[in-house]
C-alpha cells in the first residue's frame, strides 16, 4: 500500500516537474472552463455578461491566489522555486559577464589551490590503507628514551604474536631498499625494492592475490626453507608484461633462486605512502637480504628491523591493546634486562602514525593547508565584497520585490542561488586548477622522489578530492554569500523605492566591506611572509651546507651482496677499487662511504656510552647517527677536521678502534673540553672502547633544513658494511671519469653493477634545491594569488566608494576643494584600512613564522629581513590599488559630477 502510494505520487510529481508548462496550461484551462460555465449560468439567470463575469470571479475568491494554492499542492514548490531562481540568476549573471567571470575565477583560484593541497594532504595523511576495513589495522611500536617509534626484533615479534589476544592477526614487515634481481640465472642483477613480510601478511590484511596465492603461515617458520616470492602488480606488468605464466617461474634475488607463487592485486600498491614494493619475500628468507652481518636476525633480540602491525579484533579497543602490550613489555624487560631495559611500547592508529611529531610530511601538510585555506578565505572575502557592492546597486529591485510581498527568506534564497551558481562555476574551474597543480607535481615527481627505487607521488584527483572540492565550493558560497544576502534584504523600503542607489544613513553598511579589506590585506601579508620565510629558510639551509665542496665530484654505489660476496670478498673488492681508481687519469682524490651527505637512505645508528659519563640510572646507552667512511672521505668532500686528525691507513681492522665525531657531538658530551683523546664504549659501559681521534665540522646530513645533529664517523676497516658509495674528485668534468671507473670495476668483477652513477653536484641540487623548490614554488604561487586578490579587493572598494561619492566630490570641488584634498579624502580611507590590515597581518605572520620555525627550520627568533621586504612592498602595492581610482575622483569635473545620475 505504502509503496504503491509512493509510486503513484512520485509519477505525478515527476510530471509536474518535467512538464511544467503543460501542467500550468491545464490548470488555466480547467479554471477557465469553470468560469465560463459560471458566467453562462449567470447570464441564464438574467445578469449582464459583465456582471456575470464579475460574479464568477468573486465566487472564485481570487483566481491567482487559488492558482498559487494549487501549485503548492504539487509539493515540489521548493524545487520549482529553485529552478525559477536559478533561471533568474543565470539571466542576471549574464547581464554582468565581467563580474561573473571575475567572481568565478577568484573562487576557482581559492577552491583549486585548496583542493590541490587537499589531494596532497589526503595522500599523506588521511587516505586509509588500501585494504578491506582499514581502520582496524594498527601499528605497534617500541618506545625508548630517544625515540617513540622503534622497530621490533624477530624474537620480540614472535613474543607479541603468541602473547597478545586483542588482535585477529599480528604481521611484520621490513623494507629491503636494495635487492639484486635477475630474471635469468646469467643476467647481471639489477637493484629492485623488496619487502620482507610475515607469512600471514596478506591473509591478515585481507588482500587477495590477483594471481596465484599469497604466503602460507608455514612459509616463514623455518629459516631459509621456503624461497618463494609474490610480485607487486606494477613490477609484474613492467618486468613480465603481465604474463600469467610467470607463476612457478624461478627468479634470482641476491643470487638465491626464488619461485614466483603469486601476484599482488592492483588495489594493493603497498602499505606505505611513497614506496611500492616490487616483490614480497617471507621473513624466513631474511638471511638472503640481511644488511647487518654482525647480527643474527632470527636470534638476536636487539636486531630490531621489523615494523609490526596488527588487525584489532572486532570489539577490542586501542586501550585494551595498549595495556596488553605494556604488560608484555614489562615482562620482556625483566626477562631480558640487557636488551629491553627502558623499552616501552605503544599501539597507534594509522592517523596517529602519520601525524606523529617529527613526521616531515605531516608538518608540510599542516603548513600548506593553513596557507591554502588563507587563499580560499581571501578569495571568499573578495567575492563577498563584490557581492555587497553589487547588492547595493540592486537596492531598488530588492525594495520593489519586498514591497509587492516577497518574503525576506525567499529573497535570501534567490540571492544565495545566485552565489551558488557562481560557486559551482568556480568549483568546476577550481577542479581544473587542482588537476593542473597535481599534474605539475607529477611532472616534478622525478625531482621530489629522487630515488632509483619504485616510488611515486600518490597525489591524485580522486573521488575524495572531488567531494572535498564540492564541499569547498558550497562552503565558500555560504561564506561569501550569506552576509551580503542578509544585509541587502534589510532594506528601508521608503528610501529604497525612491532612489536607485541609496546610502542608508550611517557607516554601518560599509563596515562589512571595510572588515573584508582589512582581512584581505592581513591574510595576503601572512601568505607573502610565509612564502618568503620558506624561501629564505631553505636558502639558509642550502648555504649552510656549502662547507661541502660539491663540484667536480662523481658518485657511484656498489652492493657486492648482489653477486653474493662474503665479507672478506667485499672488503677486498673495496680495497682494490679504491687503489685502482686512484691511479686513473684525472682523479685527484677518492673516498668510500656508507652514505653520502643528503643521501636517500637514512644513516645507521650507533649505541654508545661516553667514557667517564655518569649514565642516568634508567638507561643503558645513548644513540647517535653514524657513517662508515675511509681515509679519503674528509679530504675528498672538503669537510674540515677542526681538531685532531682524519682517518689513516693505520686505522685498520686489527689496530685500536677509533672514531671521529662532529662538533655538535663533541660539544654535547664534553662541553668546554677537548673531545680528542676521549673514549666512547659501544653498546654499554662494558663495551668495546673507541678512541675519538678527531672532531669534524658539523654539516647537513639528511635535510638542508635539519637541526644540527650528533654524528659519528667510523673507519671502513673497523666497521665494514656491504653497500658503499665511491666518490671521486676530478680536475674537470666529473662525468668524464665514468668510463674509467667502469673499466676498473669490470676488471674486478664484470657482473657487479655500478649504481647511481652521477655528478654529486647534480644529485645535491636535486635533493637540496630542486626538491624543496617544488614546495617553495607552491607557497609562492599561493602568496602571489593572495596578493593579487587583495589588490583587486582594495581597488574594487576604493573605486566603488569613488563612484558612490561622485556627486559629493563634485560639490566639494565646486565649493573650492583642490585635487589634493579630494585625493586625500579618498585615499585616507584606503590608508587606514591597509594600515590595520598590516598590523593584523604582522601578527599572523609572526604566528606562522613560529609554526614554521618549530616545525621545519631550526631557526629561532624573527627573520627581520623578510618583514622589511614584505611589509613595505605590500603597502606600496595596495596603496597603488587605492590611488588609481582616487586619481580618477580627483579629476572629476564638477559640472559633470553634479549632473551624474
Amino acid at each position: 500500500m505504502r509503496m504503491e502510494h509512493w509510486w503513484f505520487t512520485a509519477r505525478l510529481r515527476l510530471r509536474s516537474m518535467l512538464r511544467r508548462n503543460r501542467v500550468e496550461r491545464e490548470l488555466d484551462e480547467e479554471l477557465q472552463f469553470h468560469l465560463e460555465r459560471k458566467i453562462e449560468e449567470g447570464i441564464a439567470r438574467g445578469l449582464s455578461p459583465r456582471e456575470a463575469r464579475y460574479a464568477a470571479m468573486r465566487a472564485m475568491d481570487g483566481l491567482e491566489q487559488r492558482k498559487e494554492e494549487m501549485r503548492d499542492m504539487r509539493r515540489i514548490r521548493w524545487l520549482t522555486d529553485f529552478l525559477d531562481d536559478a533561471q533568474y540568476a543565470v539571466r542576471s549573471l549574464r547581464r554582468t559577464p565581467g563580474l561573473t567571470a571575475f567572481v568565478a575565477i577568484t573562487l576557482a583560484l581559492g577552491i583549486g589551490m585548496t583542493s590541490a593541497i587537499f589531494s596532497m594532504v589526503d595522500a599523506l595523511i588521511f587516505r586509509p590503507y588500501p585494504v578491506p576495513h582499514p581502520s582496524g589495522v594498527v601499528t605497534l611500536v617500541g618506545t625508548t628514551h630517544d625515540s617513540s617509534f622503534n622497530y621490533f626484533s624477530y624474537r620480540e615479534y614472535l613474543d607479541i604474536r603468541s602473547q597478545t589476544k586483542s588482535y585477529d592477526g599480528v604481521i611484520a614487515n621490513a623494507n629491503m631498499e636494495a635487492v639484486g634481481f635477475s630474471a635469468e640465472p646469467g643476467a647481471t642483477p639489477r637493484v629492485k625494492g623488496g619487502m620482507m613480510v610475515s607469512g600471514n601478511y596478506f591473509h591478515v590484511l585481507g588482500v587477495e592475490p590477483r594471481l596465484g596465492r599469497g604466503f602460507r603461515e608455514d612459509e616463514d617458520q623455518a629459516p631459509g626453507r621456503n624461497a618463494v616470492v609474490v610480485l607487486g602488480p606494477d613490477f609484474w606488468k613492467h618486468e613480465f608484461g603481465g604474463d600469467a605464466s610467470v607463476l612457478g617461474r624461478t627468479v634470482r634475488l641476491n643470487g638465491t633462486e626464488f619461485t614466483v607463487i603469486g601476484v599482488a592485486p592492483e588495489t594493493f600498491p603497498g602499505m606505505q605512502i611513497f614506496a611500492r614494493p616490487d616483490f614480497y619475500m617471507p621473513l624466513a628468507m631474511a638471511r638472503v637480504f640481511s644488511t647487518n652481518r654482525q647480527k643474527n636476525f632470527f636470534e638476536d633480540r636487539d636486531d630490531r628491523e621489523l615494523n609490526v602491525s596488527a588487525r584489532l579484533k572486532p570489539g577490542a579497543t586501542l586501550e585494551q591493546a595498549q595495556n596488553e602490550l605494556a604488560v608484555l613489555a614489562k615482562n620482556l624487560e625483566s626477562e631480558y634486562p640487557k636488551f629491553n631495559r627502558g623499552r616501552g611500547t605503544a599501539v597507534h592508529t594509522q592517523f596517529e602514525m602519520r601525524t606523529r611529531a617529527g613526521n616531515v610530511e605531516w608538518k608540510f601538510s599542516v603548513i600548506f593547508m593553513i596557507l591554502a585555506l588563507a587563499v580560499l578565505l581571501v578569495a571568499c572575502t573578495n567575492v563577498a565584497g563584490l557581492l555587497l557592492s553589487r547588492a547595493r546597486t540592486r537596492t531598488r529591485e530588492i525594495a520593489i520585490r519586498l514591497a509587492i510581498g516577497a518574503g525576506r527568506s525567499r529573497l535570501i534564497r534567490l540571492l544565495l542561488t545566485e552565489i551558488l551558481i557562481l560557486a559551482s562555476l568556480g568549483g568546476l574551474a577550481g577542479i581544473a586548477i587542482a588537476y593542473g597543480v597535481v599534474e605539475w607535481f607529477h611532472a616534478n615527481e622525478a625531482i621530489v622522489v629522487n630515488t632509483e627505487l619504485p616510488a611515486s607521488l600518490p597525489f591524485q584527483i580522486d573521488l575524495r578530492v572531488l567531494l572535498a572540492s564540492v564541499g569547498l565550493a558550497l562552503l565558500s558560497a555560504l561564506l561569501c554569500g550569506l552576509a551580503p544576502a542578509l544585509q541587502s534584504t534589510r532594506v528601508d523600503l521608503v528610501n529604497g523605492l525612491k532612489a536607485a542607489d541609496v546610502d542608508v544613513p550611517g557607516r554601518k553598511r560599509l563596515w562589512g566591506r571595510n572588515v573584508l579589506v582589512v582581512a584581505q590585506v592581513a591574510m595576503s601579508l601572512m601568505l607573502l611572509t610565509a612564502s618568503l620565510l620558506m624561501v629564505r629558510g631553505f636558502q639558509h639551509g642550502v648555504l649552510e651546507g656549502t662547507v661541502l665542496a660539491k663540484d667536480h665530484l662523481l658518485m657511484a654505489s656498489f652492493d657486492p651482496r648482489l653477486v653474493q660476496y662474503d665479507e672478506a670478498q667485499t672488503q677486498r673488492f673495496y680495497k682494490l677499487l679504491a687503489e685502482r681508481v686512484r691511479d686513473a687519469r684525472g682523479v685527484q682524490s677518492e673516498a668510500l662511504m656508507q652514505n653520502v651527505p643528503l643521501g636517500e637512505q637514512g644513516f645507521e645508528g650507533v649505541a654508545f656510552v661516553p667514557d667517564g659519563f655518569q649514565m642516568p640510572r634508567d638507561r643503558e646507552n645513548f644513540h647517535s647517527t653514524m657513517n662508515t667512511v675511509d681515509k679519503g672521505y674528509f679530504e675528498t668532500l672538503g669537510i674540515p677536521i677542526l681538531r685532531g686528525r682524519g682517518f689513516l691507513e693505520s686505522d685498520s681492522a686489527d689496530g685500536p678502534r677509533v672514531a671521529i665525531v662532529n662538533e655538535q657531538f663533541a660539544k654535547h658530551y664534553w662541553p668546554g673540553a677537548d673531545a680528542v683523546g676521549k673514549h666512547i664504549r659501544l653498546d654499554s659501559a662494558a663495551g668495546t672502547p673507541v678512541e675519538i681521534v678527531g672532531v669534524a665540522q658539523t654539516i647537513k646530513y639528511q635535510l638542508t633544513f635539519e637541526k644540527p645533529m650528533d654524528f659519528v664517523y667510523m673507519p671502513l676497516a673497523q666497521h665494514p658494511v656491504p653497500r658503499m658509495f665511491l666518490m671521486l674528485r676530478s680536475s674537470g668534468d666529473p662525468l668524464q671519469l665514468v668510463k674509467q671507473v667502469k673499466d676498473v670495476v669490470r676488471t674486478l668483477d664484470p657482473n657487479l653493477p655500478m649504481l647511481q652513477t652521477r655528478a654529486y653536484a647534480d644529485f645535491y641540487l636535486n635533493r637540496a634545491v630542486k626538491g624543496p623548490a617544488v614546495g617553495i614554488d607552491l607557497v609562492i604561487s599561493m602568496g602571489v594569488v593572495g596578493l593579487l586578490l587583495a589588490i583587486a579587493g582594495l581597488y574594487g572598494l576604493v573605486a566603488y566608494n569613488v563612484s558612490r561619492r561622485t556627486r559629493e566630490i563634485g560639490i566639494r570641488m565646486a565649493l573650492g576643494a583642490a585635487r589634493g584634498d579630494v585625493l586625500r579624502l579618498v585615499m585616507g580611507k584606503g590608508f587606514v584600512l591597509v594600515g590595520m590590515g598590516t598590523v593584523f597581518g604582522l601578527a599572523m605572520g609572526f604566528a606562522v613564522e613560529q609554526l614554521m620555525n618549530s616545525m621545519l627550520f631550526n631557526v629561532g627568533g624573527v627573520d627581520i629581513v623578510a618583514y622589511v621586504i614584505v611589509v613595505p612592498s605590500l603597502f606600496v602595492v595596495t596603496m597603488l590599488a587605492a590611488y588609481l581610482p582616487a586619481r580618477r575622483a580627483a579629476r572629476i569635473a564638477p559640472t559633470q559630477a553634479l549632473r551624474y545620475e
Partner: protein
Amino acid sequence: MSKPNDLVQGTLDLLLLKILALEPLHGWAISLRLTSISGDVLQVSEGSLYPALHKLEQEGWITAEWKQTENNRRAKFYSLTRLGRKQLESEAANWQRLSTAISHVVQLSEA
C-alpha cells in the same frame, strides 16, 4: 490563504471522494453536485474546490483525464482510484464513528 469554510476540517475531502465514487465528473459538475446534494447547509466556496481536488490528485486518491463534455467542450474529469476507494472507506468509517460519538454527547446534555 483560503477562506475558512463552514465544513468540519477534512470533510470536504470525504464529500469529494464520495461524489466521485458515484461517477467521474469535472470540477464544474462537482460544484453543482455539491450544492444540489447538500442544499444550502454545506457552503463550499468554489475557490477552495480546485485546490482540494488538486490535493486529492497529488495524494493519488483521484485521477484526472481530459474528456469531451456532452456539449463538446474539453474538460478535466476526475475519477476515484483504488487508493481513493480505500481512503473513502476509512474516512467514511471515521466519520460514522465521530458523528455517532458527537450525537451521543449532544443527546446526553439534553437529557
